């Protein structure tokens, strides 16, 4: 089976598992909503201020959500003892990781797209005129989040205190993504809005670096 084919199979399995229970998506959406509400107490979300702080808060909420949401990615396999079965399959071991990354990317992107209009309404930010570049920034940032997050979820699954450990490992590594995505989003919401080429390039290189690293070294994590 080719890498693309087996990755697609794993992706389909992940999606099926999630959409049968739908617990992960719903819980994460509510979690981010809570964070957005709580952030509104820390400063006055008037229009001019929220343009400056809003994107940063939104991205921090997404990163926190990611560090919690990616947790079950490998824990679920561990609890059901299914990782061994996956490994026995005659496929490239990287496709297990790649399939999970793709699934996590889609879950996170879906959560972000659901919450984006809510955020825009609550913080009084007009996002419609810049929707296309905004989705590009979201997608690029989320690739980085899903790539490192899936790998670290496999790392944390093998340790004690894993629920606390995953954010501890993930958030400092993702600091560049937070900076780049926030700056790109602030640029888009500014008047006149501009798509920062520097930050888009930066996000792309972050994604490429860690996708390559996951491809080279990630499969070691699947060993028993």
């Amino acid at each position, binding site marked *: 089976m080719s890498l693309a084919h087996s990755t697609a199979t794993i992706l389909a399995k992940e999606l099926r598992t999630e959409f049968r229970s739908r617990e992960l998506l719903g819980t994460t959406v509510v979690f981010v909503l809570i964070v957005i509400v709580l952030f509104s107490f820390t400063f006055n979300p008037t229009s001019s201020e929220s343009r400056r702080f809003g994107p940063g808060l939104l991205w921090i909420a997404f990163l926190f959500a990611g560090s919690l949401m990616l947790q079950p990615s490998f824990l679920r396999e561990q609890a059901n003892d299914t990782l061994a079965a996956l490994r026995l399959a005659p496929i490239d071991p990287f496709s297990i990781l790649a399939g999970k990354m793709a699934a996590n990317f889609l879950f996170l992107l879906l959560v972000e797209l659901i919450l984006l209009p809510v955020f825009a309404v609550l913080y009084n930010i007009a996002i419609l005129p810049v929707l296309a570049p905004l989705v590009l920034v979201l997608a690029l940032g989320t690739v980085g989040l899903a790539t*490192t997050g899936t*790998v670290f979820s496999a790392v944390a699954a*093998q340790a004690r205190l894993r629920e606390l*450990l995953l954010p501890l490992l993930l958030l400092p*590594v993702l600091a560049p993504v937070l900076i780049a995505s926030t700056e790109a989003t602030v640029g888009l919401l500014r008047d006149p809005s501009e798509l920062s080429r520097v930050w888009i390039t930066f996000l792309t290189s972050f994604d490429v670096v*860690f996708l390559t690293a996951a491809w080279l*070294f990630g499969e*070691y994590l699947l060993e028993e």
Partner: protein
Amino acid sequence: MAGESQSRIPSGPAISLPSVLVVFLLLAAASYGALIKAPEEATMGLIQRIFYFHVSSAWSGFVAFILVFIGSIAYLRTRALKWDWLSVASAEVGVAFFTVVLVTGPIWAKPVWGIWWTWDARLTSSFLLWVLFVSYLILRTLVDEPERRAMVSAVFGIFAALDIPLVYFSIWWFRTQHPQPVIGNGGSLDGRMWRVLMLCWAATLGVMSLLIRIRYRLEAMRMEVDALRLEASRHTR
């Protein structure tokens, strides 16, 4: 571990007397250079002399983190635990050196800038780097089985090391108002100051390699004790 033929660690000290002497002499020369010989900086005065140890500790810390990267890749490729020992030894020593950087920095900043800390590019990225490798060390404490610990921490070590340049670039572009560094970027540093700085770097590198060797051996001994304990429990049963 079980069944593997374990090579016993030779007895005797981890570091040889001549190497300790060399590092001691280097440190003495560096201190003399930094505190007495180097010319006094025009505007900052005496406090600027902390610069020699501040910068050389940062550079040595970087070298230690590069060793973590090398050790991690080598471990995944060869599965020889000695590479894991190198990684953990280098990470701990690197964190110690960056702690020195983060402590001497504010001591220098307070009289010169009037504040202990500012969120400028260099400070923020050094802080983040420190946190990154503290996370690495915490991860190691949370996995008990040696081979599994070596494997997961190697993967995280590689990711953390790859993150270093990204952290630096992103914070660099983000905090464009940072004060221009004195070294590189066309900054000017007096020739004598350069030589003293290089001497200090050699001294801190010397200290670093001694510490890594001691810590490396400590890790090797821990593994041996574990293996012996396992063996002993098998015999008593």
